[in-house]
């Protein structure tokens, strides 16, 4: 995927720094179990969503991740975040 002028390069949501805002630009739904994909979409974690990572992991681990979407905070796993490509704002 190419770079757009003026914005940071796209990256996996997993790699997004805590507190940085970003937009989800694509999701590899095949990498996520179908039921879980449905739940993620129902919660608004879908292409076009503006998100930020609020918290990540316990005891130095990187799971789970708390993502802010709109006025909600949603806990997801790293595998989900690894399937999402974001464009930092």
């Amino acid at each position: 995927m190419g770079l757009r002028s003026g914005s940071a390069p796209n990256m996996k949501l997993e790699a997004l720094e805590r507190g940085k805002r970003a937009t989800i630009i694509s999701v590899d739904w095949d990498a996520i179990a179908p039921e879980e994909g449905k739940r993620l979409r129902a919660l608004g974690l879908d292409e076009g969503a503006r998100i930020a990572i609020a918290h990540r992991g316990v005891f130095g681990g990187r799971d789970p991740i708390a993502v802010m979407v709109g006025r909600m905070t949603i806990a997801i796993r790293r595998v989900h975040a690894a399937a999402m490509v974001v464009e930092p704002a």
Partner: protein
Amino acid sequence: MTSLRRAALVGNPNAGKSALFNALTGARQKIANYPGVTVERKAGRLLLATGEEIELIDLPGSYSFDATSPDEEVTRALVHGDFDGEAAPDVMVVVLDAANLEQHLVFAQEVIELGRPTIVALNMVDLAQRDGLTLDPDALSQALGVPVVPTVAVRRKGLAELTAAIASAEAAAEADHSAHPRPHLTLPERRLAARNIAKATILSQSTTRRLHAGLDRILLHPWLGPPILFALLFVIFQAVFAWATPFADGLEALAGLLAELVNNTVPAGIFRDFLTEGVIAGVGGVVVFLPQIVILFAFILVMEATGYMARAAFIMDRLMASVGLSGRSFIPLLSSFACAIPGIMATRSIADPKDRLTTILIAPLMTCSARLPVYGVVIAAVIPNTKVWGAIGLQGLVLFCLYVAGIVGAMVVALVLRRSVTAGRASGFIMELPRYQMPRLRDLAIGLWQRAWVFLRRAGTIIFAATVVLWVLLTFPQAEPGESQLDVSIAGKVATAMHVAFEPIGFNREMTLALVPAMAAREVAVASLATTYAVDSEDEAQTEQALREQISARWTLPTALAFLAWFVFAPQCLSTIAVARRETNGWKWPTFMLAYLFVLAYVFAGITFWCATALGL
């Protein structure tokens, strides 16, 4: 009388449906600040201003009619009229969280698309205000094309208006039976529309710093969060002993006085024995644990009402993942500390079937409140009430360890099950973390009163009944002078026969006997021991003695520890087995559960006894 007209409450999880339901019908359904509290359909009566009644149905929260978990499926089926032959509801009441419209409006549109008479309850307007939002309900109503009523369920605001709106929608439904389905939108279309409608509804928003972000920074901190959770659990179990003691002592003294009173007023004979040995020693022995149970529930209720419970699930997720479960299992497991039955019911919010089954199978390993009296009485009898490391009570510490033993046991069992009978893809963890709320004192008081009442009712019914039966079996046939009553009684004979199997793990005969009626309810183990010792007592003074003193005089430490270990794993009560059967649709899994728990209990009680004996305790 023709069947009642029906209205159903639907909406996203944690929108306040059950709170509205309770406020409108006077019911006392469980409400708590995390998603997935309601997992069943519940019905109540709503009185309209005309004096007419309609049936109001509370449903599990749902993100979409495209269900992903068993609780969402209940909602889908009921709304679409596929639920046990029940007709679809006439009126839909969509409950929205006013502070999170963009999300809640997505499902709302799906409901409105059905074309049935629909009302929107714009709930939690107080929280929207707290978050700095000013909303325009009329704009929302215009955009959605249905009436909108602002409400604050927990302050009983907007209830009359909501009832009136339901009544007029209901009247309209009666006049016109055909539904008017609206064009069907796709999810992205609905999401876009939701965003636009929310924008039109929100008149202004100030950027008040949201309380919950700050709290989460501490409570979900990668290094601080887990110790805080652990410390909190530790404090709970310390408090259960430390704070309850004065009250428990009071109740115990009261039971002693009562026994003395009966001894002084009722003529000696079989009836007096029944009162002192069966009712006062047996049932009374259980009731003295009321203060401990109330304290335990007070903590659980506060955790549920504030929203901390979902954070605890977040923190525990890592640990749960390492045994093949997810943080989603944490809430059902935590409910199982109250009782395994609601815990097993709560697994309906787990989408993955294998995950759910594993959680059901390990739920009984979480120490339920009914086991608290068993632990309590044995700990009080054999563990000295001293302090270790300064301020920590030894008794509370032992109690904490027993709970931890159950949790560790559950984790190990889950690990084994996920690699054998419930093997499958590791499931993920997706959960909304609700906003923090200040618990309302009134709700807490009602919740506590309900739990206390349930406990007392159990004492008055099932525990009483089991104790009476046991007392009869212990009292007949009557011993000749010189014989021991325990030896000649029917129950004593049964216990002697069973004892062969339990002697190797250090159980004495009274303990063995207590295991049988404890299947009815765990607390009956305490009542059973109390009644057995009362029947076996030489004189009245001894009958009046508290069970704690009897145990401390009669049991060795290894025996007592073996008994505690047994109850960590002990096969659960009959009602748990019945619920497990219903939730897993058959006898296969409950039988399996019973078998593995029995083996674990036996083995661990044995290991505890042998080790303690070898150490010369």
